[in-house]
């Protein structure tokens, strides 16, 4: 039977528990842990598409951050136009506003993803150096276009009224939005796992990540599959952008650059092409960022790079290496 390697799964609770003595206060630790899990779930939403894009076609898309920024800026426009709904203190009215913002952001990111794949990625298949240069260039152009449309300044993206505030678990304050982020992240993960394990398209994606030549030899057009994964990955980055923007409560055109570093750390930790690995990597990165942000803010980014190095020393191909790669 298919057995799951549980050692990487244990890393998340081990990291969390290991930090408890350093944080000291249990209530602060709960707050930081939930914040870390929420941040990790948002990063997972963004990174899950990118890891499959790399796994399927060896494409290094450094322009993935563009879709994050695009999703967030689209959300500012949609939510801005629904001020009556976001200003309500009733959660259901807030959700009615946030849901279309997410859907529109995903649709716009997907549409731009189609063009990005066709005109920027497709001409440089198999050429890693060119991929890095041209996708970064594509992201810079995209950011400039965002500045043309929305302006170069930071735009506030306040949380809808009903999503503000915190719930209390004993003395620990847990922000409502962070719980929502965890639920959305889990829903996206569950949907991905269902598609990957229960549908033939999912099987083809998993097989293509391992041996794309054999998938073609079985009669399937892997390139079409790749375009589909690229577009879905772009849409998920757009969704992640909305979530990240609401998490930060403001958006800037350069936000894609800021998140790009984190998502590449995540997919390397997880194992290139592994969805489950991306989840573990994202949770570890989210937790580490929050703990070190509290304990030693100056080493927050370094701590994630150190985490990646430590994981790679343990498992050089990432926590869930994909076979045949």
């Amino acid at each position, binding site marked *: 039977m*298919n057995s799951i390697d549980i050692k990487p799964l244990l890393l998340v609770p081990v990291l969390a528990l290991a930090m408890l003595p350093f944080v000291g206060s249990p209530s602060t630790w709960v707050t930081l842990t939930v914040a870390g899990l929420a941040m990790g779930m948002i990063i997972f939403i963004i990174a899950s598409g990118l890891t499959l894009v790399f796994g399927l076609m060896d494409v290094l898309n450094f322009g993935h951050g563009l879709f994050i920024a695009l999703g967030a800026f689209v959300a500012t426009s949609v939510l801005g136009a629904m001020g009556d709904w976001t200003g309500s203190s009733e959660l259901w009215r807030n959700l009615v506003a946030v849901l279309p913002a997410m859907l529109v952001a995903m649709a716009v990111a997907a549409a731009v993803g189609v063009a990005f794949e066709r005109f920027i990625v497709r001409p440089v298949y198999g050429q890693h150096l060119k991929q890095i240069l041209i996708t970064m260039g594509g992201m810079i152009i995209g950011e400039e276009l965002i500045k043309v449309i929305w302006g170069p300044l930071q735009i506030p993206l306040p949380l809808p009224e009903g999503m503000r505030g915190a719930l209390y678990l004993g003395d620990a304050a847990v922000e409502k939005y962070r719980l929502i982020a965890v639920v959305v992240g889990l829903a996206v993960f569950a949907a991905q796992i269902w598609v990957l394990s229960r549908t033939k398209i999912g099987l083809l994606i998993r*097989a293509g990540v*391992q041996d794309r030549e054999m998938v*073609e*030899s079985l009669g399937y057009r892997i390139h079409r599959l790749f375009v589909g994964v690229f577009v879905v990955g772009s849409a998920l980055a757009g969704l992640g952008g909305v979530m990240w923007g609401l998490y930060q409560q403001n958006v800037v055109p350069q936000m894609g650059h800021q998140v790009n570093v984190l998502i590449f750390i995540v997919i390397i930790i997880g194992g290139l092409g592994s969805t489950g690995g991306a989840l573990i990597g994202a949770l570890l990165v989210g937790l580490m960022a929050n703990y070190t942000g509290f304990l030693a803010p100056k080493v927050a980014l370094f701590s994630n790079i150190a985490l990646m190095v430590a994981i790679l020393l343990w498992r050089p191909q990432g926590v869930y290496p994909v076979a045949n790669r």
Partner: protein
Amino acid sequence: MSSYHSKTGLFAPQPAKVAQVAHSHPVPLPPDVPVDALLRLEGVHTHIGAYHILHGVDLVVPRGQLTMLLGRNGAGKTTTLRTIMGLWQASQGRVVFNGQDITREHTPDIAGRNIAYVPENMGIFADLTVRENMLLAARQAKRANQMDEARLQWIFKLFPAVEKFWLHPAGKLSGGQKQMLAVSRAIVEPRDLLIFDEPSKGLAPVMINNMIDAFQQLKHSGTTILLVEQNINFAKRLGDTVAVMDDGRVVHAGSMQALAQDEALQRSLLGLAL
């Protein structure tokens, strides 16, 4: 630019653009070779990067027969199979299947002509279960319960390990079991042409006998098979026709029986006697 970019992946060899390649003389086929060819290669040249591997291969695979492709290591057998499947593009010459020129077709289109291919490395998806591997090969089925049950039972009878490890990850199988799975995957649906690259490689004798039994049953069902093989006993027991390659060319074509009976020819072609 090709729309099938996997062939231009980081680790994939790039076919060279060749302006003109000297065409080798085709090897005349003996008169006993039937003319009803399911697959025919005519003067096929293949370049991999700067290397010129196939130097004008002429090969006929008669319909309904099992054709053995023999030759020393490096003779060009695997390149021939990969060129047929479009995994490497022929730089010159023609590949004709069922009367249609497939030389410039992409791999999925060639496979879609009801051709199954098992590469030398078996192409098993290690992270997928045995069932999932089989389901991918069953193009008509969307779910495991839509696979042809009678055919599955026939496969289970030929290769019991496939049934035994049905829900196990394919990567956990032994080398021999993986080879069984690779062959099972190729025959999970009826195909017009089966192409195998050294299916007996690394197999225990008892497994080779199962494999021979499977190929004999496939032969009797009228399936056309092209088989690269180094195991000479395997070749002798199964082959109807044979083509021997050397230095990127077919240097001999004829019946397997005739080659098996001519020791001098075997020595000159293969450096050994069958």
